[in-house]
């Protein structure tokens, strides 16, 4: 992850194309509703290099999926398209996408950036053959005959490890098993050799035994194609397995980001501590209970003042002057390529981590 020489709310953002392959700057995605403005993503910045994997972690409603759909430019389409307010910048390979015309973004979609969805059964059209759906994806961006595209589809199905691809290409999604379906979905996403692959909880709907296979497949394909991968997940096990960098989201904002090693070994934010504490581990005594993060995810309409996490944070009262409740913490550099947004002082964090959190993990 490239370091940004500015804080998250940085208005000094230059319009200059960044060096990173994908760079998101101060992204805001708001949905006006009858109850108020839902601030699903509120000032998010990150970047991904080619060949690297960024994991975006957070609870449901923390804005991770909204972020991925924003990068794909999928919010502005359909009947709800008018009801979204997006600002900030998304730079993909030197092109800015937030201000680009829907048609420009459409041309990039599927070719330069592709997406894998959570539930492959509902994400594939039930009435069309799997092969035809892959052919369709290929032919939007390549002027080739149906025959050539079909050959390509068989090739891709073979590549993602589907047995008898020449036969399965004529199968319907409901004739595939869950894992095979997700493989087919990956084949469809990769058919145009996209340089950015966004995987939105690709293993959540799958059997545990199949999960690891799918993750391996994504990792292998990434190595082969050298693409950048964004892995959206709430499963820290997945993150540990696959990610180079981690971005922890809470209430539509980034609370901590850094390399996977840094975030796992020296997490700096109380929310990340909570996530780690709620993760089941095979090497832990079964008699020990998991410690869930207490409370509910914040409302995205009335985001708590100050630090959005303060109502659930056991350490919110440690910083002086009630600052957790009044001032929103900005991301600060806390280690090599490691940023965190917390009012706790470095000494307090160090103390709490080593004395209270780490021994329990």
């Amino acid at each position: 992850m490239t370091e940004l020489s500015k804080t998250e709310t940085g208005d000094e953002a230059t319009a200059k194309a960044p060096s990173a392959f994908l760079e998101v700057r101060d992204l805001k995605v708001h949905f006006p509703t009858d109850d108020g403005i839902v601030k699903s993503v509120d000032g998010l910045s990150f970047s991904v290099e080619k060949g690297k994997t960024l994991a975006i972690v957070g609870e449901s409603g923390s804005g991770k999926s909204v972020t991925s759909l924003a990068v794909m430019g999928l919010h502005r389409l359909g009947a709800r398209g008018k009801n979204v307010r997006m600002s900030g910048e998304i730079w993909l390979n030197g092109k800015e996408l937030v201000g680009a015309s829907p048609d420009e973004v459409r041309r990039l979609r599927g070719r330069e950036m592709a997406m894998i969805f959570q539930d492959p059964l509902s994400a594939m059209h039930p009435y069309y053959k799997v092969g035809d759906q892959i052919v369709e994806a290929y032919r939007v961006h390549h002027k080739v005959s149906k025959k050539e595209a079909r050959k390509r589809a068989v090739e891709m199905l073979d590549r993602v490890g589907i047995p008898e691809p020449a036969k399965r290409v004529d199968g319907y999604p409901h004739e595939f098993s869950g894992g095979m379906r997700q493989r087919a979905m990956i084949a469809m996403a990769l058919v145009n050799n996209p340089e950015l692959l966004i995987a939105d909880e690709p293993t959540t709907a799958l059997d545990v035994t199949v999960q690891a296979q799918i993750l391996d497949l994504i990792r292998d394909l990434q190595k082969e194609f050298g693409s950048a991968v964004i892995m959206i997940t709430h499963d820290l096990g997945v993150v540990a397995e696959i990610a180079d960098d981690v971005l922890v989201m809470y209430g539509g904002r980034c609370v901590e980001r850094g390399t996977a090693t840094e975030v796992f070994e020296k997490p700096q934010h109380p929310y990340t501590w909570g996530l780690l504490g709620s993760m089941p581990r095979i090497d832990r005594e079964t008699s020990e209970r998991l410690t869930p993060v207490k409370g509910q995810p914040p409302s995205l309409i009335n985001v708590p003042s100050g630090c959005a996490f303060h109502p659930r944070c056991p350490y919110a009262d440690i910083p002086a002057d009630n600052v957790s409740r009044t001032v929103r913490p900005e991301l600060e550099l806390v280690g090599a390529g490691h940023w965190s947004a917390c009012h706790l002082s470095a000494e307090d964090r160090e103390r709490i981590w080593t004395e209270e959190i780490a021994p329990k993990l």
Partner: protein
Amino acid sequence: MISYILRRTFAAVILLLVVTAVTFAIFFLLPRLVGQSADQLAQQYIGKSPSKADIVAVKHNLGLDQPLYIQYWHFIKGIVAGADYNLGPTTVHCDVPCFGYSFKDHVEVWPQLTSRIPITLSLALGAAVLWLLSGVAVGVVSALKPRSLFDRTFMGVALAGVSLPMFFTGNLAILLFTYKWPIFGRTYVPFTENPAQWANTLFPAWCSLALLYSAIYARLTRSGMLETMNEDFIRTARSKGLPERTVVVRHGLRAALTPIITVFGMDLGLLLGGAVITEYVFSLPGVGQYAVQGITDNDLPKILGVTLLAAVFVVIANLLVDVLYAAADPRVRLS
């Protein structure tokens, strides 16, 4: 797929048999149950003020004094093998398929029906094409821009269309477009004689009937599209970079269309059995008008014939829907 079609066809044949039984029951069993005697039933087949001897003769000749299962057997036999009716001095033959013999007009019902089917078919098919195209088109556009001016206007029109009875829209159309401004013809001309005149005469009837039905189809398509356009596979289609038009038509409409096929088959089947009111309003000598005629004349065989024909059309339409459904949705073929 072939075995599926065979299975459905077999089911349809069984259903037709059930239909004949029910029809028979309505016309021969039900009157008995409510206390009508065989004499009274026989009386309907003779002219006014018959003598006792006439009634007994007719009762015997038509087999009304025999047990019900024998009567039903004759009824079925008539349909598949023809029947003879002994009318005392003469015997009339009723050809296959014998849908009955009108003793009031002294004609077989089936030829009467077949000569009227083209008219009903012309009316129903023409209107069906109109309402399907307009209903689905309006529904799709409304769904893509919900709560827009277009949506509100056309959903309002649709509500009016479904609420206004044919007596009103039909007569209004005739009044305006054939009398006040005589754009359209008044008397039905068969398609084989003059296609232009055929379409010209039927057009007001098509539009009136289509207005009634397209309202339902517009609403059905709208709600179906609103639902499918929120499906995950639509998001997938967009994520592939497909143009929005392809997403809407190939992915959205295709999925939303299946329930519409079902309703369409039923509606068309029902209409083919006689668009009673429309044919009456537009003076089209179709099957529906024949039914009205049979009812006003209290001529049982005519009514029975129309009922049976309508039932056959509905069963056939259902069969077609089943087959189309399998063609449209690959998941159906398995079950």
